């Protein structure tokens, strides 16, 4: 019987041990981290599924833990992503300035995550949140930029501060810090206040529209093995708070007649759709592969928000399914890009091309990840998007539907850009020596590929677990699902059948291919160039400004948000300088004036 408290202490202990082990030799340290995360994941999976983790507390008396299906759903996904990514550590750690602290902070943040999702006390939730924030904040600058870590910390801190103020507002009204009771206990204007504060926290952590500046910076510049964790796992914390705010608190504001949805929920859905559109447009324009995937996580965060704010059983199930599918897909994609970056040293699409010839397995991993990310049938992304579409259509939210459809089609565009610019196209001379990623790195890629397909073809087990969550947290009807099919308001989707028929189609095409004559092998440079003799691969590789005509249309508007936040920071500095001038001036007279002002103020005030 695994005890949550022992797991936490085990993690903190193994974090310290891995610190010293990595000081010895980074390979051994990383291997130890792999085993530590594996132990945690296995014990969570073994005992967590049927909810019999022991939550008694002996060594740390002021902590209190409780098991919920919702919490377990998040923990198992994030722990799985941590395990998969830890396989990458042995090969990446030597390049980082403070490599021995890397493993320490990695395991500490995992401990924070397990704690955050297993606690039922608001302050402990905040305790673990803050712990996750500052541990991950120290991991990001090991990559390329310091500014990314500062903006990540700034936005996450705003989020968690809003969360804390919300917690205290609840405490003031309900008098207790219990999560379930607290959220249920509030109503009227305080629930609006708490809803707004919790949504700020959710938007900041999810990296959706208004508070998304840190997302591309942090994911783009984080160390290569850490961005899958950042986008696959840590973004999901925001989703968790989003669920608390959107589902647990009863709907906010007047109900809009046409789509009978509360106004608060509709505003969040609108923000979600804004972030889908904005994320897609920015991703189409992006040249750095990791920043592109960051913007895609932003747009998928928008999907999750739309799903949870649609207040519909299928949308809620679709949202949870999407969290799982997106976590796997974006982790897979980021890991593929990390493998490429390790081999070539850059993630810029301008400098890369033709990676498929040297790294075919990484290519397959990336292909399956983006098929799921774009929501195309055989993979998990399609089922979750299908469920969300059902809810959006059922409610008839037209503007949200425009954004959701734009996002699903646009995601096809920007996921294809790295595929074409990075993997396909001409093979550059300077990457001739590049070899496929080592075996230890391929294990997680294979596992995630398998899982992507599994979530796409057999939705039953996942839908059943989601039904537990629905039963536990909401009053919606559970989603009916047999082994291969999922039924929603507008008809059933037979995922297994689609995969089977797809297989049949490919078989037919393969037969046609085999019957005909064998085609002549021709190397890549021998292409039709209107008979010009071109000898340099770079001239024949089309990857810079891939969607140039599309990008030109919204070139100017794409920097508004960044300018807004820079201006905000600048304004705060201005106020600081003004205050310094007012209060900290060098001549003593100013202080005297302030003293007199206060005295006169008080006398005047009291006397009147």
């Amino acid at each position, binding site marked *: 019987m695994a005890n949550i408290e022992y797991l936490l202490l085990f993690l903190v202990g193994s974090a310290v041990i891995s610190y010293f082990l990595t000081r010895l030799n980074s390979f051994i340290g990383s291997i130890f981290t792999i085993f530590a995360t594996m132990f945690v994941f296995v014990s969570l999976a073994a005992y967590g599924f049927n909810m019999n983790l022991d939550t008694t507390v002996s060594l740390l*008396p*002021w902590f209190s833990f409780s098991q919920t299906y919702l919490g377990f759903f998040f923990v198992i996904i994030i722990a799985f992503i941590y395990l998969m990514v830890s396989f990458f550590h042995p090969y990446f750690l030597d390049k980082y*300035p*403070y490599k021995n602290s890397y493993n320490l902070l990695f395991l500490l943040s995992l401990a*924070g995550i397990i704690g955050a999702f297993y606690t039922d006390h608001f*302050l402990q939730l*905040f*305790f*673990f949140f*803050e*712990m996750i*924030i*500052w541990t991950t*904040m120290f991991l990001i*600058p090991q990559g390329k930029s*310091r500014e990314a*870590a*500062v903006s990540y*910390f*700034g936005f996450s*801190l*705003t989020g968690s*501060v809003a969360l*804390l*103020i919300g917690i*205290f*507002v609840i*405490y*003031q009204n309900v008098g207790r810090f219990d999560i379930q009771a607290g959220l249920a206990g509030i109503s009227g204007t305080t629930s609006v206040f708490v809803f707004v504060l919790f949504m700020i926290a959710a938007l900041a952590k999810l990296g959706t529209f208004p508070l998304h500046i840190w997302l591309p910076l942090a994911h783009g510049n984080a160390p290569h093995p850490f961005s899958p964790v950042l986008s696959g796992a840590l973004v999901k914390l925001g989703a968790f708070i989003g669920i608390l705010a959107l589902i647990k608190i009863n709907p906010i504001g007047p109900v809009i007649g046409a789509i009978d949805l509360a106004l608060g929920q509709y505003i969040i859905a609108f923000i979600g759709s804004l972030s889908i559109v904005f994320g897609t447009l920015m991703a189409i324009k992006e040249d750095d592969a990791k920043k592109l995937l960051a913007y895609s996580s932003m747009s998928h965060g928008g999907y999750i928000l739309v799903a949870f704010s649609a207040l519909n059983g299928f949308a809620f199930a679709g949202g949870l399914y999407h969290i799982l599918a997106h976590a796997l897909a974006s982790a897979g994609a980021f890991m593929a890009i990390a493998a490429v970056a390790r081999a070539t040293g850059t993630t810029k699409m301008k400098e890369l091309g033709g990676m498929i010839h040297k790294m075919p397995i990484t290519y397959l991993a990336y292909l399956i990840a983006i098929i799921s990310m774009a929501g195309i049938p055989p993979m998990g992304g399609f089922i979750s998007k299908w469920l969300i579409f059902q809810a959006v259509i059922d409610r008839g939210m037209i503007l949200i539907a425009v954004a959701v459809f734009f996002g699903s089609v646009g995601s096809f565009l920007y996921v294809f850009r790295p595929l074409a610019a990075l993997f396909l196209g001409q093979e550059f001379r300077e990457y001739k020596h590049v070899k496929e990623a080592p075996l230890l790195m391929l294990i997680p890629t294979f596992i995630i590929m398998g899982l992507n397909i599994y979530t796409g073809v057999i939705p039953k087990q996942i839908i059943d677990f989601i039904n537990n969550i629905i039963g536990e947290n909401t009053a919606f009807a559970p989603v009916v699902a047999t082994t291969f099919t999922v039924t929603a308001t507008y008809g059933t989707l037979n995922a297994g059948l689609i995969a089977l028929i797809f297989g049949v189609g490919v078989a037919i095409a393969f037969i046609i291919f085999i019957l005909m004559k064998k085609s002549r092998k021709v190397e890549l440079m021998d292409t039709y160039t209107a008979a010009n003799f071109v000898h340099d691969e770079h001239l024949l590789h089309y990857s810079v400004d891939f969607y140039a005509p599309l990008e030109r249309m919204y070139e100017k508007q794409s920097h508004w948000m960044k300018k807004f936040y820079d201006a905000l920071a600048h304004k*705060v*500095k*201005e*106020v*600081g*300088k003004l*205050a*310094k001038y007012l*209060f*900290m*001036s*060098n001549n*003593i007279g*100013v*202080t*005297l004036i*302030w*003293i007199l*002002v*206060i*005295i006169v*103020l*008080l*006398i005047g*005030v*009291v*006397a009147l």
Partner: protein
Amino acid sequence: MSAVLLIAIPLLAAFISILFKKYSIYLLFAVTIFNIANVFLATEGIIIIGGFSPPLGISLLVDTYSKIALLLVNALVLVIAALNVKAYPKYGTILLLVVAGLNGLVLTNDLFNFFVFLEISGIAAYLITASNKKPITTFRYLVIGAIGSSLFLLGLIILYSMFGTLNMVDMIKEIALNNNYQELVLPFTLMFIGLGVEAKLLPFNSWVKGILGHSNTFSGPMIASVYASAMGFVLGRFITNLFNFEGMLLTVVLVILVAGIVLSDIMAFASKKSREILLFSSVAQASMIALLFVNGIIIWAVYLIIANALSKTVMFMIINKAQKDVGSDEVKSLQGLFANNLVIGIIFTIATLSVMGLPLLVGFTIKLNFLTELADAGQIWTIAFILIASVVEGIYFVKLLLKLWYPEGNLIKVNYHLSFKLVFAIIALALLTFGVYQAPLDKLDNTVDTVMEVVNNG
């Protein structure tokens, strides 16, 4: 071993140490160790000196609150003096004066006597800041300090004229009888401003930028942690017992304090020099402490004073030592300070994280608890402002930390003496253990300050 020795011995030693200059610093060590020992042995309660009855005679009040203050002040002075024994050997006598003055401040129950000790410690402070080699800033500090203490005296005189007694306990009894609060506003404001100047509250502390901005490894910690914590304790005692603000006065004081927190954090956000960042952060902490006392959260204010004093000593010492070796305290020029002294880096990070109030460190538990208490007191807007200020604080501290951790261009050569590392490691360890293991913090509670007890039952 009555508490009077805590004041008498240092004074006596101060005069003796003038005779043999070289050994004055070792005399200081002896006196502070004696004081620390004496604090544990001292008997609690009111101590009358010279047999005069309350309205005239000088009396001391000893309770756990003042014991904690004494312990903190003497320990810090010992540590700081020990660490700077090579750099600043000749400050033995002045330090003895400091110890005498601050002990007096904390212990005295007689308001006029409080003013006297305020003057003694002020003079000692001016002499210490003289070591900054920046006479203009010390002069500015001297003038504002003098104004502050004279305002305090003016307030005291008004009170004396109204109630005829100088003894704090009697004064509180008299005030309790007098029902007209209008008259008390003027003296309380004057005394609050007088103490505010010394305790670095926002509108009155323009001297802090000059003093701490050009501080060194000796004057920085002394002003930023020893004096700050002493004045914090004293201000706390006055606010909770004497002033008990109410009505319009309370709102104005609250506005001053909250504005103090938010504005000083924003000023820190806007400053480029690392020492300026630290000094504005300590100004913010001072206003926070005063705010807690105003809301009657005594025990968490005490812990905040202790934690802030310890972390500020560590941070000021590290930054000042680096500034001395590098020459300028611009954050750009200190870039990559921790690249090759890792231990110091970890210690500085732990101290900063504790000041910011992040988990696993004592700062977090303190912040969470005093916010809960504020929530109990129904002050949601104050919580909101404190937390918004903590966001700004978080951002500028993280910017500072990341600049210090990650070098750009050539590495700077700063080495710290082993003693530095040892002492700071102990402090950092304390911050960490009390962050994780919170049981001991819950042993004490608001009854630490027994002034009201003494007032009620004689």
